[in-house]
Structures are given as structure tokens and as C-alpha cells.
């Protein structure tokens, strides 16, 4: 028998005027795991999080936390705490007072409060910072205070509303790692919402990709990345080359498709695809091989020809942007780490190929090529 999930959402729905923010959503989050809800802005993820926290009442459905239904339970009585987007530290209080705030509301005595707040600050690596004002801390330290302030109440569930959004890139990368380590140390279930796919991939055990109030796919980061269930997921998670076209022939799982410019490629079918249908194919930049001559490419793969538009140097993430010669479709290919193609010039002729098994083809959502 499986343990009770820390969070269980059953057919949850919420409508704002004409806009369906959350549409019949069901999922559960296992104890101690890091669950992310990933989606573009306006997909309903904030509404979902605020319903879990209790700030918004759902129209339909139920939320159970630690096996207990939360219907009619006010936010201040739920075993859930939230880390807000701008952190919402109390500027009128010291760091220690911020951390002890929840304990004070539970009626815990001053001495005990002080001791526990100091221990919690120690745990998040801010020992001795208790007397500081919140605006004396760096962005990363402020985030740790926000987490400490919530974790001191030992919630069943910690909700995080894009807490890294306000940080600069360097600090964000650092805080990603720190968040993951904190989650492992506390072993508390984290529910994290973000529009940044890289944050979700790095941090999560499971991710729900949300669009128009529904989950497009729910799975591990690897599943989302390597076998996206829909064109939306393929386009949203990780960098991808998208080719829109028409299926020419379907042979089992293999689809032969042609773009409007007449470029013919092979891809692996995901979901039902029939010949003549409008389709979208996705090929990852790193799933493609580059060569200076067609003969260097693997024998079994179709060789394609391109003309270099520009070299996008970004250290280990360097890529080349090229134009497929026949259709003029732009295509991005990751450069190998060896630096073999670092000397590519704009306008140079280059050959590339990919394994059709790693190219994914969906029936186009809107039915048009």
C-alpha cells in the first residue's frame, strides 16, 4: 500500500468571469518530493497555487493535504506555507522576528521562539543574522529567510510562487542548487511554480506542464524532455527546432513529412498521425549531427544541407543557426564540445543529419500545416 500523498487534487476547477483558469485538474504529489508546475504566464498556475494555499476558493473539486480535505479550511489553519513571489518578508521586523512570526501566532513563548528561530536560521546558513533588518540581506539570503520563516512551522507542504523570478541570472543559478539542497535537507514536500523550464528541470522530481488550465503532461524531467506528450510540451520544455508540415506517408511509428518549403524529413510519431494530416515535428539541437561533407554523416541517416546564418557562441551551450538550403527553414544545431566547428563562417555550407527516432512528430493542434 502506497503512503498517503501529501497533496491530492481532485477535479479542481476555477473560473474567473469568462476565463477558465483551472480546468478539471487532478494530480497527486508524493511525500517528500519536489513537484513543479511549469507553464507560461496566464496558464492558471498561480490560481492553482493560491487555491492550494487557501487564498482562492475553488468552484469545484477538492484539495486534500496530508490526506485531509481542505474544503472550508482557512489559509491560516492549513498545514501549508507559502514563499511569495517577492518573498514578502516583513520589513518592520528583524530577520529573527520574521522567522519567529508564525511561532508567535501559535502562542509559543518568547524564549522558546527565540531559540527555535536561531536554530532555524543556523540551519539555513544564516546563523548570527537574526538581528539584522531584512533589507540588509542579499537576495539569496532573503530567500533563505523566507523559506526558514515557513519551514519553522513544519508544514506538510511548502508552496513556492516563482521565488527566483526577481533574482539576477547568476544568483538564480546559485539559488536553484541551494533550493534543491534545502528541500533534500528538510525532506518536506515542495510545490513550486515557475515559467522557467530550466528551473523546473533542475529542481523537480516531477513536473506538471500546464497550459490553459490543464496539465499537458505530468512526468519526470527526463520524460518531459525526451518524450513530450504534446507539441506544446515539446516546444515549451528545452530548446527545440519546430518544423510544421504535412505527413506524406506513415510507416508504423515512422512519419515522412514535408514542410511547406518542400523539405522532407523523417520523424517518430507520437499519437495518431495519418498521411495527409497537418503535423509538427520537433528536433532537439543536440540530437543533430554536423559534418563538413555529406559523406561524414552516418550512413543510415538522411543528409540535409544548410547554410550558416550565424554562430551562437555561449560556452558549453554554443550552437549554430543555419538555413536549410531547399526550404530556407531556420534550424539550430548544438556545437560539439570539441570546438571542431568554432571557425564556421556565416554563409558556409554545412551538412547535418538526425536519427528519426529522436525527432518527434505530432498531429498539428489546429489542423493547419
Amino acid at each position, binding site marked *: 500500500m502506497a503512503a498517503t500523498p501529501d497533496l491530492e487534487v481532485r477535479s479542481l476547477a476555477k473560473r474567473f468571469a469568462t476565463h477558465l483558469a483551472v480546468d478539471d485538474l487532478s494530480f497527486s504529489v508524493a511525500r517528500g518530493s519536489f513537484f513543479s508546475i511549469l507553464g507560461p504566464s496566464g496558464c492558471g498556475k498561480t490560481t492553482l497555487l493560491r487555491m492550494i494555499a487557501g487564498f482562492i476558493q475553488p468552484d469545484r473539486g477538492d484539495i486534500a493535504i496530508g490526506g485531509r480535505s481542505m474544503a472550508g479550511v482557512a489559509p*491560516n*489553519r492549513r498545514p501549508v506555507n507559502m514563499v511569495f513571489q517577492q518573498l514578502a518578508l516583513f520589513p518592520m*521586523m528583524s530577520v529573527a522576528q520574521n522567522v519567529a512570526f508564525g511561532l508567535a501566532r501559535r502562542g509559543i513563548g518568547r524564549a522558546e521562539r527565540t531559540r527555535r528561530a536561531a536554530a532555524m536560521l543556523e540551519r539555513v546558513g544564516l546563523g548570527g543574522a537574526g538581528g539584522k533588518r531584512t533589507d540588509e540581506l542579499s537576495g539569496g539570503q532573503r530567500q533563505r529567510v523566507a523559506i526558514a520563516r515557513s519551514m519553522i512551522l513544519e508544514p506538510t507542504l511548502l508552496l513556492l510562487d516563482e521565488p527566483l523570478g526577481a533574482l539576477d541570472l547568476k544568483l538564480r543559478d546559485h539559488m536553484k542548487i541551494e533550493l534543491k539542497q534545502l528541500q533534500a535537507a528538510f525532506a518536506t514536500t515542495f510545490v513550486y511554480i515557475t515559467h522557467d523550464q530550466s528551473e523546473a528541470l533542475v529542481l523537480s522530481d516531477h513536473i506538471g506542464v500546464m497550459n490553459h488550465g490543464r496539465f499537458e503532461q505530468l512526468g519526470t524531467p527526463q520524460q518531459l524532455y525526451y518524450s513530450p506528450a504534446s507539441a506544446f510540451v515539446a516546444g515549451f520544455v528545452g530548446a527545440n527546432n519546430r518544423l510544421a508540415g504535412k505527413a506524406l506517408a506513415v510507416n508504423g511509428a515512422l512519419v515522412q513529412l514535408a514542410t511547406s518549403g518542400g523539405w522532407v524529413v523523417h520523424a517518430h510519431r507520437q499519437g495518431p498521425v495519418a498521411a495527409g494530416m497537418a503535423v509538427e515535428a520537433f528536433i532537439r539541437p543536440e540530437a543533430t549531427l554536423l559534418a563538413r561533407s555529406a559523406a561524414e554523416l552516418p550512413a543510415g541517416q538522411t543528409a540535409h544541407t544548410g547554410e550558416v546564418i550565424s554562430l551562437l557562441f555561449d560556452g558549453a551551450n554554443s550552437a549554430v543557426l543555419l538555413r536549410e538550403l531547399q526550404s530556407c527553414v531556420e534550424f539550430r544545431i548544438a556545437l560539439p564540445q570539441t570546438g571542431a566547428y568554432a571557425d564556421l563562417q556565416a554563409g558556409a555550407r554545412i551538412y547535418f543529419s538526425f536519427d528519426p527516432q529522436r525527432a518527434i512528430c505530432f498531429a498539428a493542434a489546429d489542423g493547419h500545416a
Partner: protein
Amino acid sequence: MPETRAATLWYRRLMLGLLLAPALLWLVALIVLPHVDLALLSFRARIAPREYAVSLDQYRTFFNEPLYWHVFVRTALMSALATALTLLVAFPIAWTIAKLARGRTSALLFVVCLIPFWVSETVRTLGWMILLRESGVLPALLVHLGLTTQPVELLYHDATILVGLVYTSLLFMVVPLVGSLESLDNALIEAAYDLGGKGWSILREIVIPHAAPGITAGCIVVFMLTLGNYLTPTLLGGKNSLWFTEQIYTQFITRFNWEQGAAFGFLLLALSTAMVWLGLKVSGQRFSDVMRRA
């Protein structure tokens, strides 16, 4: 080059001086000069017709005559009470305008607070008298509803004065409160709620500390206005009002005792300064922060 630089500097100073001239003129001619003259007046006593000597008599009279300092203390306490009541009434209004109402509703509520000020204070207060006097609207209504057997006089009570003062002061409390409450991030309230806070503890721990400069600013303005108010206590309180400004008026106008009146004026100024200082000390606010809110 040095000459041009000096010329530029001189020109800048001239412009600054010209820009500040109206304000300085106003400050010196209408505030500083009269006060200097009043101060000199308050420190002299008439020893014979048209003959004056430097003396502390005027201040001595104040302390020796129980009526004077009784009225003085009463005015201070009533003003403090009126300020506290204004704060209690204004806070929910300001909260509604700043946090609950949106767009047009918020603007409309503000206008509703402002409307009474389109009418002069005299007319407004006379309006209150029409409502409250024995033959007025409210006593007649009470009789009509059977709550009283005969019309009661609602004027000339301390409570009536307080009602009038709170009504007159409300806007001056609402404006700084709305300003300071609007700048309070809603996420802070939600965070406090999320961490187990309830209405009262959030108000005490989050809202009031955040709004403290606005609250102090509103209280200072309302207290000063109330303390120096002449019309409302006199009209609504009648002869029983015992407001200190009346004493000053009497000395200047009825008794032609300008020396005594000037001394009273300075005592009122000292009182209001002391209360503002005390208010800042008690609330732990800095004068500059508070004045930015007012």
C-alpha cells in the same frame, strides 16, 4: 574663466533667491514678524496708562487663575480625545479606500469624504445646529419615533463638540492614512495570514507598524487643527464649551487685553509643540518621515 564661473554662481543664487522669495516673504511677514511682536507683547505689563514694563505678569495670571489652566488642560484632553476618535473612524474608511475598493469606487469614496469641505466651516457647523438644537430635526425625529417624550437639547454637550470636531477633521486623517495603507504590499498581509496570523494580530504586527508614519502624521494634523479650532467648539458647545481659543479671543476682542491674549497664544503654541513632540516620541517616528506623509 574664473569670472564667468563666479558670474554663473551669482546668477544661480539670484534665481534661487527669486524662486524662494514669495515663500520667504510669506514666512517672515505673516508668521515670524507677528509672532515676534506677540512674544514681545506677552512679556510686558501695563503699569500706568500708556506706560508698559517688561514683566511675567501675563503668564503668572494664567497659573494663578484656576479657570484659565482648567480650560487649557480641558482643551488639550478634549483635542486628544477628538484625535483618537477621528483615528478610529478614519481607519476603516481609509482601509476601504486603499485596499478594498477598486478604481472608480475608491475615487468616489474619496469625493464623499471631500464633499463636506466644499461648504465653509461656518455653514457646516450651522447645519449641525439645525439638526441638533431642541427645535431641530433630530430631537423631533426622536419624539416621532417615541424614543423621547419631548424634544431634548442635543447642542451644548461635550459629546456634541466631539462629534463636530471629528466630522471637521476626518479628511485630514483619511488622506495620510490612505497614502500609507496604499503602499502596504498585499502580499505582506497574505504572508502573515498564511503564517497563522488572524485579523487582530495582522493589524497589530503588520498594518499598524507599516502605517505608523501616516497615523502619526494624521494625528498631528488633526490635533493641531482641533486645538486651534474656534468655530466648532463655540457654536456647538455654546458658553459651556470652555475652549482655550475662546479665552484668547475674549482677551483680544472683548477685554482689549492684548498682552494677556498674546501670552495665552504662546501657551497654546507651547502645548501643541509639546504634544507633537510627545506623539513622535511615543510612536517612535521621525519628524521628517511623518511630514512626508502629511
